[in-house]
């Protein structure tokens, strides 16, 4: 038996297929793009191919993320907060605080007794999300993936005082023209992002173990800045992008197992890969 988790984030779509032993048999990541409604089935196809499976082999499918309502073949939608918490817990059993910095949002989750107990989100403002770095990297003419390493060369952080992404761009240009070093400015940008996210996290009382996930966690400069701003150690998964989809797959298995054990009927959607439309309501 296999289970699937589909995480449609604002920037990246991720799918994880898992077997009954909680082993990940395939994992696919791809950029979401504007047409994410069409994308979910594409990514699922790729995941199935990679694992050499058919859609009918999947017993239960959970969709999560900002686009979770647009996965017609998903049996259930669960928020990314619960899914990330579950995914992180499976990788780091002693986690109490999970922080996910996504492309367009930042989430902090409090975990206790094996589940999500509290959360805060920022999805209104680009500052404190991956978008902040994307925009600033473009302003500086640097590749996003190079930002982290450059920032680690810095010996003196340049304080970026504007908390708004748009104004930060102007500030960065001024600083450059004033002769500040690129690596120092980038370190300052990382610090600005980290301080926003740390402020969010502190509303939940930070307790170890603290785990950082999301695409931005691959940036060594951010990891350093987050550690400084939070004042504690951080654990980071091998693939920080997959925790949402992983958690969704685990929850799929749990739900399925629980219902089977109770002898309850398990409503599932027809196993057809289709694009989402605005109109039909599935009658199953």
């Amino acid at each position, binding site marked *: 038996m296999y289970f699937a988790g589909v995480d449609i984030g604002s920037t990246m779509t991720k799918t994880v297929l898992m077997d009954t032993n909680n082993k990940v048999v395939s994992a696919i990541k791809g950029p979401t793009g504007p047409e994410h409604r069409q994308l979910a089935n594409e990514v699922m196809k790729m995941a199935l191919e990679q694992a050499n499976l058919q859609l009918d082999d999947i017993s239960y499918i959970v969709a999560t993320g900002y686009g979770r309502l647009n996965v017609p073949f998903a049996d259930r939608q669960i*928020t990314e*907060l619960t899914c990330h918490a579950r995914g992180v817990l499976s990788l780091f059993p002693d986690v109490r605080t999970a922080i996910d910095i996504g492309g367009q949002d930042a989430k902090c989750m409090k975990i206790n007794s094996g589940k999500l107990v509290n959360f805060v989100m920022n999805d209104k403002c680009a500052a404190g999300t991956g978008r902040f770095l994307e925009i600033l990297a473009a302003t500086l003419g640097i590749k996003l993936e190079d930002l982290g390493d450059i920032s680690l060369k810095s010996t003196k952080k340049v304080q970026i005082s504007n908390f708004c992404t748009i104004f930060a761009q102007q500030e960065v240009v001024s600083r450059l023209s004033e002769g500040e070093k690129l690596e120092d400015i980038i370190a300052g940008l990382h610090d600005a992002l980290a301080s926003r996210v740390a402020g969010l996290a502190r509303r939940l009382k930070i307790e170890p173990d603290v785990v950082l996930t999301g695409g931005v966690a691959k940036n060594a400069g951010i990891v350093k800045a987050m550690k400084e701003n939070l004042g504690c150690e951080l654990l980071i998964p091998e693939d920080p992008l997959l925790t949402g989809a992983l958690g969704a797959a685990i929850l799929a298995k749990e739900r399925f197992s629980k219902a089977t054990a109770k002898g309850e009927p398990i409503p599932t959607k027809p196993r057809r890969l289709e694009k989402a439309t605005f109109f039909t309501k599935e009658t199953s």
Partner: protein
Amino acid sequence: MLDKSKGLSKAREIYQNRSHRVKELKAEGKKIIGYPCMYVPLEIITALGLVSYRTYGDIAEPVTEADKALPTAFCPIMRTCLDCALKAKDDFLDGMVAIHSCDPQDKTTRVWQSYISYPYFHLIDMPGTLRTQSLEYFKGQLNDFKKTLESFAGKELPSDKLKAAIELHNRQRALVRELYKLTKPDPPLISGTEMLQVIKALMSLPAAEGNELLTQVISEVKERKDGPEKKPARLLIWSSTLDNIDIMQLFEAGANVVMDESCGGIRAYRADVKLTDDPLDGLSDYYLKEITCARTFREAVFGEARKDYIADLDSRFGYLKDFIRGWNINGAILFLVRYCDPFAFEMPSLKDYLDHLGIPNTYIEYDYTQGSLAPLRTRVEAFLETID
């Protein structure tokens, strides 16, 4: 067959086309008096044969006109109210009564009065505490309101007529409480969405017609076989005002909302006006003390030298404990409108109280526009997942 002339269908109908009845009444020669806040004593309006009508803007209407008079970082409810007024959406109103319950209302209505000259306008001042002198002052303010309204209506308001209006409105309050009893069963017999439509209907009808509607709804709901589906979470919503079913439906996608403690729910109907010799005593006492909006400064014991935090919380929020126990509530959403200061300061204390009672709760902020529905959905769903 759905009979739109009575009960829940009628309430739904009225919710979608709120001003229909008052426009009919206006054509018959009645005068319509608008009010933006549940602190305004409607009894005085009713007693003089005028029709009261609650204004609360429109979350689907982007605010544009109000920008010339109010900044964007400001109570979005008052902004939309002013915006709709400036766009002549409620030009059937013959008058407006506002009250200094909070700064945004006070400031907005003064500006409102500058831009729109209603034939009648009155601003009632309201004290912030419950002291004896404050009550006296408030009574004087209500008396002033009565005087100007008498002048507008062209007749005096004798005491017995006011007492009759108080009884009529008390009857409405009792009927609303009776209807709320029908959310006690599991699943509740009436949904939060349907309740909201009924309450909004009450705010769009003369009191007597509202009572008739309530009576129909109560008997319909008692008999019904098509009530809401049972959901694992039974929620209390705490908010300043909740006037839109889009939001309520979001809460109810995964839960049963069995109690709505807001000015779109039970707040204005929770208690009755006491019948006093001088009806203004009963009215000033009720409106200042019994409407549980966060704007009023309440404390356990006046000027107490040593404070017991939990006792203080219990004196401020104890009535919620009754709801929680009586309605078997297992979760609460503290639903705050952005830029609302009284509720924002009150919220952490209420959180402490709910934590003390062991009720899972979450605070969600909202800016009263259609655009913020999607993030709201995620937060509500995530909260329900934590208490699952």
